[in-house]
């Protein structure tokens, strides 16, 4: 038995390494996916090196230079109603948006996948109960669910992340459950079962790695939508609070100046657009590679 197991797991390790490598080679050929990846890398670098890249302090107010228009050197993108440099605030904002995106997706990814894995694997009443709860969560439009959760928890950035994570969790649970059900019927699972492999090992070491493809696609696309949703929450006053340089909040605070100072509203939105575009391009590319059936 141990010989067989050893043989199999080694084989799997080699195989999966080459599969990941092969997939990466395929992805590299996809120009739009690579373009998306470059956008993401660009924003990640900007976020990490914000103190170096940003020309000014994002919090520094200066009454003398309020609402300077776009291209007023050295304030390239102009200043806002408190005389703060918009470019610097956008650069620091990248930190917040990316962190929110990754953390909220991690929340839904970890908990959603876990629920899906358990209910798909064990079936029976565990499956029935958890899928009932998931159905009920899906009965709320998720935007509404997010807003309500954050309104109840209190309007902070952390709560916004938690709310987005919880509201998106059902999708991951469903996807994971569906792949586990398909995988459970596979012969290698039967073989391992007959060899006496324990349930936990079977679930996490054998089945889980084979169910990751659709989840990875969902998560990549999910970071983009999480960034939009967190900006929307901040826009409604339910996320980041002033004077945080959060993109949605920057747009909200400039709402009253749309007629006099368009640049304050416009540029943070363009930043959101490009980051999200990056994740969508990469996500679409990964989907084409991992699940060629979905490719048109």
């Amino acid at each position: 038995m141990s010989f067989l197991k050893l043989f199999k797991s080694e084989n799997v390790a080699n195989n999966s390494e080459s599969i990941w490598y092969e997939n990466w080679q395929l992805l590299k050929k996809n120009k739009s996916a690579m373009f998306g990846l470059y956008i993401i890398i660009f924003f990640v670098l900007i976020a990490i090196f914000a103190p170096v890249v940003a020309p000014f302090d994002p919090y520094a107010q200066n009454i003398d230079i309020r609402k300077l228009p776009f291209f007023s050197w050295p304030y390239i993108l102009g200043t806002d109603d408190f005389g703060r440099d918009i470019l610097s605030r956008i650069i620091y904002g990248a930190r917040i948006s990316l962190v929110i995106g990754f953390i909220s997706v991690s929340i839904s990814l970890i908990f959603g996948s876990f629920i899906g894995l358990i209910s798909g694997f064990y079936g029976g009443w565990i499956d029935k109960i958890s899928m009932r709860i998931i159905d009920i969560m899906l009965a709320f439009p998720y935007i509404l669910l997010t807003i309500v959760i954050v309104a109840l928890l209190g309007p902070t950035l952390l709560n916004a992340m938690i709310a987005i994570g919880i509201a998106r969790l059902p999708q991951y649970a469903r996807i994971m459950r569906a792949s586990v059900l398909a995988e459970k019927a596979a012969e290698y699972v039967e073989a391992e079962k007959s060899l006496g492999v324990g349930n936990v090992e079977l679930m996490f070491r054998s089945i889980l790695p084979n169910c990751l493809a659709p989840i990875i696609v969902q998560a990549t696309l999910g970071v983009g939508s999480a960034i939009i949703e967190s900006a929307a929450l901040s826009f409604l006053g339910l996320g980041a609070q002033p004077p945080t340089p959060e993109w949605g909040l920057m747009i909200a605070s400039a709402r009253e100046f749309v007629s006099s100072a368009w640049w304050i509203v416009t540029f943070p939105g363009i930043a959101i657009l490009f980051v999200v575009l990056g994740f969508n391009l990469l996500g679409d590319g990964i989907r084409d590679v991992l699940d060629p059936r979905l490719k048109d």
Partner: protein
Amino acid sequence: MYKFILKRVGMLFPTLFGVITLVFFMLALSPGEPARVILGERANKEAVEKLNAELGLDKPMHVQYVIYLKKVVQLDFGRSIKTGQRVIDEIKSRFPATIELAIFSMILASVAGIFIGVISATKRYSLLDYVSMFGALFGVSMPVFWLGLVLIIIFSVNLNLLPTGGRMDIRYYFVPITNFYILDGLIHFFKSGDLGVFLSAVTHMILPAVTLGTIPLAIIARITRSSMLEVLKQDYIKTARAIGTPEHKVIFKYALRNALLPVITVIGLQFGMLLAGAILTETIFAWPGIGKWLYHAIESRDFPAIQGGIIVISTCFVLINLFVDLLYSVINPKIRTE
């Protein structure tokens, strides 16, 4: 077929019950006492306790829950803390505005989305295809509230073509009959020959409808394109072409019909989403619908209003999804047997 419908409709009740229950416990367990919200932070303890007793909040949780269930079944969500009006009346008076906006956004998104999708699929890998698919990608990557403000900057502030918000010019005084202002405008026109009300309603509709419709438009265009490409690969299309059927007939009569199956599902699901997505759009355009109302209720922690609003929107969402499922089973025989 009937079995499928019965089963699907039967699922409705546990789901709605779950929604109603979840809403109760979310609000009941959330921090912040409604009585404090009504009376203010500085109210004394006796007054708060007295009001709690009046609102039935001094009773044990399970008793409150049963009372709540009985009321919800009768569509009684209590009175709004802020206005003192009955919540169901407030919802009723605002719902037509949201429905009207959602319908127009969806018409726009469906017509434009299907059109773009079909063109992209038939002219695959052409410049037009790349431009429209990249446009669709931009559409799904955009924050809706930002798009709304940018449209206001362009069309209201700079070009001065369209109004920045509201449903109707204040100079028009008229008594709404249906509360769907565009329809009311038409009725007004037939009665008095004055087209102003109708035109005002239409111009107020354009920017919010475009804003709310952009994401569904992009999604519908992408789905239509991939669904069309899938269908165009089929043998029966090749046969139709081989026997010399005109191309427009192949595309619109044979291909599009089958390609629309998944598109219809997406349209239905997106329509449900729109009702909730209206929160952002209505807030930006001062659109007096249920989304903006719910947003203010959340802002002021108006618990009965929040409860009523969420239950009504979610119920509509569930019903629309049910309708889409049933419609899909009617037009796609494959699903009935499953």
